[in-house]
């Protein structure tokens, strides 16, 4: 093997968390190989639709029928539209086996799903980390707020988070840039809720947007968010955070980064003699050639499900069932967020007012259920998004001059109000992923078999969310209240987590408190796969903080020759 294949660190995956691992290693002088299975997407250069007006889209935003028909899973994703569909993996491009229905939403490119994410960034509190221990499920998290608070700050300052300091124990404050306004109706709802409920709050949802860029963001080449709300296309202003605009170019600037797109990781190579991993085997997606790369430390950030797949497929004499899988729990205790329930209505007040511009976030209701103590017949709880606005619809009655006249008048309708649930699900051994024994993908790697479903706890939580929100909407005087349960399959929440969970005990978990595999300490897992429980917050901010923390621990350990 030539020196060209040797690095100081290898990071698998260039998305939300992988970008952070690469940045930390490169900044500290480590020659780093960043592997990405998809194509390269360069900030600004490779956002083909970013400056297009609605009338410039051939199908006005719609996805052609044949694409929808051939790709039912990805077609269910809200952001799979004509303007951003080139960033999503089509069903036909990487098949998987659904033992139970599971909508696996993927973005295979440099930047991964950080290009199209919804940019919501709420911190975890100890009410979240304490969850499994207090309520008796999964295993105890090996970390608490005190272990990660400084890393949240570290990440937030670099990313740029817009938010208010709300002083809520269940949603710790962070390093915030100014918030955008709530609408009149959102403020009205906030008042009604705080008057009627002691522990319920309606706040501005913190988001990864540069409402007021700081010197660090200018240095990154990013500028003020322009409230376009077209983020899923990639932003010409760098107004929101993605790996492409921020961590990856930052890492490249050090001269220490080697970015290798079109590289599917087949497996991690385990050195039986040394008792640790020494590299990775990749397959070039263009040439189908296998190549090996070597480094003393490996970060696995392939996205929760593909991280499970890589570890399960990393078989050796010592680990016949997958790397680090001495206890047989790899791939198990997989979980997600329950996004099934919605409530809509109208507010007939505030008729003389409207909103202006496009706010890239909404209002947010932090978890209030079972927060301080168990109070319902289900475990844990849910957070909720809350939004409002006014729309005008064209009056399309008549034809000829009458029709044109009708269309030229756009009267504003009443304020619409809506909310969706984000429910915690309980990780269980029976929710798992594994390798299909027969089916392989086009790179000769076994297909992932996913067996993840809802349970009775989720059903009760959907009902409670709808009951509670109906009560809150009613108290706020909202009208035409309608509720729905989409019964959508797990996965469509795009918050899949677990399978390689953190824990204190090697018998019951895969990773230690620093995200090292208990059984193979120079392999770190810091994406969604590491999550012991899911809580209710949008998880990306926590992945980024966990990654920065683990990477700096790895750097310290390497300096001490401990890895």
């Amino acid at each position, binding site marked *: 093997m030539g020196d060209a294949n040797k690095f100081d660190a290898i990071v698998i995956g260039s998305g939300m968390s992988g970008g952070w691992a690469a940045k930390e290693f490169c900044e500290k002088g480590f020659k780093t190989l960043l592997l990405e299975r998809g194509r390269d997407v360069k900030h600004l250069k490779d956002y083909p639709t970013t400056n297009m007006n609605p009338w410039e889209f*051939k199908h006005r935003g719609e996805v*052609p*029928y044949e694409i929808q028909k051939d790709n039912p899973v990805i077609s269910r994703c809200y952001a799979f539209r004509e303007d951003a569909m080139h960033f999503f993996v089509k069903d036909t491009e990487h098949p998987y086996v659904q033992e139970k229905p599971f909508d696996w939403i993927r973005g295979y490119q440099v930047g991964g799903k950080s290009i199209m994410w919804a940019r919501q960034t709420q911190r975890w509190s100890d009410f979240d980390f304490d969850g499994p221990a207090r309520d008796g499920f999964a295993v105890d998290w090996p970390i608490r707020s005190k272990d990660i608070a400084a890393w949240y700050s570290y990440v937030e300052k670099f990313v740029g988070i817009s938010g208010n300091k709300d002083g809520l124990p269940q949603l710790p404050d962070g390093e915030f840039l100014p918030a955008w*306004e709530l609408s009149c109706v959102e403020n009205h709802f906030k008042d009604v809720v705080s008057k009627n409920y002691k522990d319920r709050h309606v706040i501005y949802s913190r988001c990864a947007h540069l409402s007021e860029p700081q010197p660090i963001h200018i240095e990154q080449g990013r500028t003020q968010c322009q409230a376009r709300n077209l983020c899923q296309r990639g932003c010409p202003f760098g107004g929101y955070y993605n790996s492409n605009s921020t961590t990856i170019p930052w890492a490249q600037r050090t001269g220490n980064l080697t970015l290798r797109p079109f590289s599917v990781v087949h497996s991690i190579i385990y050195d039986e003699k040394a008792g640790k991993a020494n590299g990775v085997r990749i397959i070039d997606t263009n040439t189908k050639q296998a190549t090996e790369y070597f480094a003393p430390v490996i970060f696995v950030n392939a996205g929760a499900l593909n991280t499970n797949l890589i570890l399960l497929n990393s078989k050796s004499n010592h680990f016949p069932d997958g790397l680090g899988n001495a206890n047989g729990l790899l791939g198990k205790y997989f979980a997600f967020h329950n996004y099934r329930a919605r409530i809509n209505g109208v507010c007939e007040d505030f008729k003389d007012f409207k909103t202006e511009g496009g706010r890239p976030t909404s209002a947010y209701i932090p978890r209030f259920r079972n927060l301080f103590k168990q109070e319902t017949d289900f475990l844990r709880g849910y957070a909720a998004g809350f939004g409002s606005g006014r729309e005008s619809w064209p009056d399309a009655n008549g034809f000829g001059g009458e029709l*044109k006249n009708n269309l030229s008048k756009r009267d504003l309708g009443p304020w619409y109000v809506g909310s969706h649930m984000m429910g915690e699900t309980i990780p269980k051994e029976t929710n798992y992923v594994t390798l299909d024994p027969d089916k392989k993908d086009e790179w000769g790697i076994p297909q992932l078999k996913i067996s993840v479903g809802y349970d009775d706890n989720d059903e009760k939580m959907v009902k409670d969310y709808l009951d509670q929100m109906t009560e809150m909407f009613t108290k706020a005087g909202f009208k035409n209240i309608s509720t729905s349960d989409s019964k959508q399959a797990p996965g469509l929440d795009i918050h899949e987590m677990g399978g390689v969970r953190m824990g204190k005990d090697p018998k019951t978990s895969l990773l230690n408190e620093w995200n090292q595999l208990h059984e193979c300490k120079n392999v770190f897992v810091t994406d969604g796969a590491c999550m012991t429980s899911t809580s209710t917050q949008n998880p990306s901010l926590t992945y980024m903080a966990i990654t920065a923390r683990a990477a700096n621990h790895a750097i310290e350990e390497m300096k001490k020759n401990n890895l």
Partner: protein
Amino acid sequence: MDRRSVIRNIAYISVGAIILPACTQNEKRVSTALKNLKINGDQEQMLADLTQTILPSAGGTGAKELQSHLFALMMIDDCASVDDQKKFSDGLRTFDDAVQKKYNTSFSKCSDGQKIELLKDLEAKKNYSEDVQNFYNTVKRYTVQSYTSSQEYMVNVLKYNIIPGKYKGCVPVNQA
């Protein structure tokens, strides 16, 4: 920004590709490339005339300038289900037959007065079968969409601006 004008040009080129000139042979052929729909030049002309009756050019841009009939054909060809494509193709014939029966001539050859009478009936949902009515509704829906999603309409009526720059949560409705 250069990138932007390049993207615009690409968009214009692709629009240009849709409206390549009609074939001038004896047998009228359809002027646009369709993958799924099978329609002839007479039917295309009928669609053009129908969309122009729905949305005339008098008083500004209409279906003729927007090429609304080609937009409708393209959208149905690309974005409608196989079932809806069939309904549309059947509807073309059913509509033709209904007009022939009533006026003894094709829609394109109807007088302006006849066209207006026909559309009045369709708007009032009377005298015509459900299939004819559905066909008309479909054509009208796409005609309206081609208009309300046009640059002129979005800029002038909706005041669309791709870069708002700011968000305000509560401004008076009547503020300019």
